[in-house]
């Protein structure tokens, strides 16, 4: 190692010298970078990589190593906590046949897709409204206000919605007010058929501002000429929406939908706090299922195997997003 470093220093010194010279004598500039010698290339590589190395090292220590551990643990039997025994694929074959696991998969799917769809609809509606030619002060204030739900922590969201979904809470009171007497008796969070729906509402409330913001930013980049041309052709609001707006913001919708998919799929806090997976497992999602096995039953092997399953599903479903992002990369 000693020699290359010495050479690099020498090179650097001499090139600094040349650089100093080229400042005053611009015509010498071409000689500044001598034809790419190996040492020079290596030095450049190290300079470039030194910017990302600290972050990447930290990230690999903080995520890569734990991932490796989880994979390893998923092949062990933790019945005897102190001495886990290698168990092959036993953990995997156990959860595959557990009906509660498939119940969690089903709930996760419902939770995720409904949240993303509702969130996109609400976010898009607000984005379209805010994109109308309204007073810019008014728009600014409204956009800021509508970001508030996104800033609140999931514990706060859980607390607020548990209060509002209380049988004697605001939601039932309002439902009664508009004449829905029968529905207004519902104990939303302790009823098997409504609990998941109630949690989804809370989740959408917290998630929509991000989508609104992204879609709005994207809407503002659409050229006005397109709309003027459509106006001349006599297109109505919905025609403009379908033929101009949506095609123009298709990519951002896709990106936001994937991000939301990822965030909702692995979401934990709201379900855990609002229902704890109940009543009768009707809101059990994959992350609460894993949590239960890891920190209640302390069956780390089984929990790891299910967590790996989650990660695989997630990566497979969003693989096209990863590929699209990578393709944009200048390698």
């Amino acid at each position, binding site marked *: 190692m000693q020699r290359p470093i010495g050479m690099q220093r020498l090179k650097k010194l001499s090139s600094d010298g040349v*650089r*100093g010279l080229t*400042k005053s004598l611009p015509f010498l500039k071409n000689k500044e970078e001598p034809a790419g010698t190996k040492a020079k290339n290596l030095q450049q590589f190290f300079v*470039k990589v*030194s*910017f*990302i190395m*600290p*972050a*990447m090292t930290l*990230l*690999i220590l*903080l*995520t*890569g190593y*734990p991932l490796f*551990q*989880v994979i390893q643990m998923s092949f062990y039997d933790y019945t005897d906590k102190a001495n886990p025994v290698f168990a092959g694929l036993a953990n995997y074959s156990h959860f595959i046949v557990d009906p509660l696991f498939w119940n969690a998969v089903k709930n996760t799917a419902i939770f995720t897709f409904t949240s993303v769809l509702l969130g996109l609809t*609400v976010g898009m*509606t607000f984005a379209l409204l805010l994109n*109308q030619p*309204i007073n810019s002060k008014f728009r600014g204030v*409204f956009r*800021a206000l*509508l970001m*508030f*739900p996104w*800033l*609140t*922590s*999931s*514990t*706060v969201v859980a*607390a*607020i*919605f548990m*209060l*509002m979904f209380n049988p*004697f*809470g605001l939601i039932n*009171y309002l439902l009664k007010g508009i004449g829905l007497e029968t529905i207004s008796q519902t104990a939303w969070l302790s009823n098997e058929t409504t609990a998941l729906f109630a949690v989804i509402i809370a989740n959408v*409330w917290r998630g929509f501002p991000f989508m609104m913001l992204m879609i709005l*930013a994207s809407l503002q*980049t659409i050229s006005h000429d397109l709309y003027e041309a459509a106006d001349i052709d006599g297109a109505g609001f919905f025609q403009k929406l379908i033929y101009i707006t949506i095609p123009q913001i298709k990519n951002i919708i896709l*990106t936001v939908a994937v991000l939301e998919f*990822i965030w909702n799929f*692995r979401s*934990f806090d709201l379900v*855990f*706090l609002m229902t704890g997976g109940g009543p009768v497992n009707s809101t059990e999602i994959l992350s609460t299922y894993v*949590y239960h096995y*890891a*920190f209640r039953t302390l069956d780390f092997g089984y929990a790891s195997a299910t967590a790996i399953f*989650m*990660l695989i599903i997630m*990566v497979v479903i969003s693989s096209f997003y*990863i590929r699209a*992002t990578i393709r944009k990369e*200048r*390698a």
Partner: protein
Amino acid sequence: MTGRPQYTTYAALLVLGSIALLPIFWMISVSFRANTEVFSMPLSILPQNWTLEAFEKVFQNAELMRLFINSYVIALSVTFVCLLFAALAGYGFSRFKFKGKRTAITYILITQMFPMVLLVIPYFLFITRVGLYNSYFALILAYTSFALPFSIMMMRDFITTIPYELDEAAKIDGCGPFRTFFHIILPPSLPGLIATGVYTFILAWNEFLFAIVLTNSVSVRPLTIGIGMLIGEFTTEWNALMALSFMASAPLIVVFLFVQKYFLQGLTAGSVK
């Protein structure tokens, strides 16, 4: 302003906006009433008797106050660590081509998909083994693991919007890459740094799962746990719970309002072309 005045737009915004903001309004409204008034029918939209009772209850609880300090210590530390590493990495990823770059970016993207419950298992085992259970350090490490990937991508996206000509000019003037970064790129990156910093702060301030698994005492637990415990323990004190929720959300809302412009600009920099 073109065409006819947008009366329908204003009306729709006001109606839908009120519905969307109702939960926040309700939180504030309940936090200013006595606990007996929380469910007293008919519900009134504003407190009938304004009282600071709930806030007094929160302020007199020394344990809850301690949680606030913990949250600040943890969230600010995570923000500092992430900004430091992410700014450097963001510059590297935005400006240079090198071997392994695609692999590195793919890795960062995949880490963003890690389910928290997946990471929390090995973290729990590791942290207890090395004796860091119930420490600030444990939470700072854990939060960095999921905040750093986002921070790197945000900084990279932001720095990419800074014209490359600046780098070239600096190079011609004889700046090395490190001087270019510190003197030429960092100053115009300020909005990006603010956006990334605020985002990281929000993520760390709001985290719940790691906090409940890796800590067990008031001396290090963050505020989210305090709220979570109030939910679990005595659900009857709704006014205190709402007051605490209000106080927990206020810092983020204030920070957001102050740096809104930069924050929105930084958040949307990468994804909107």
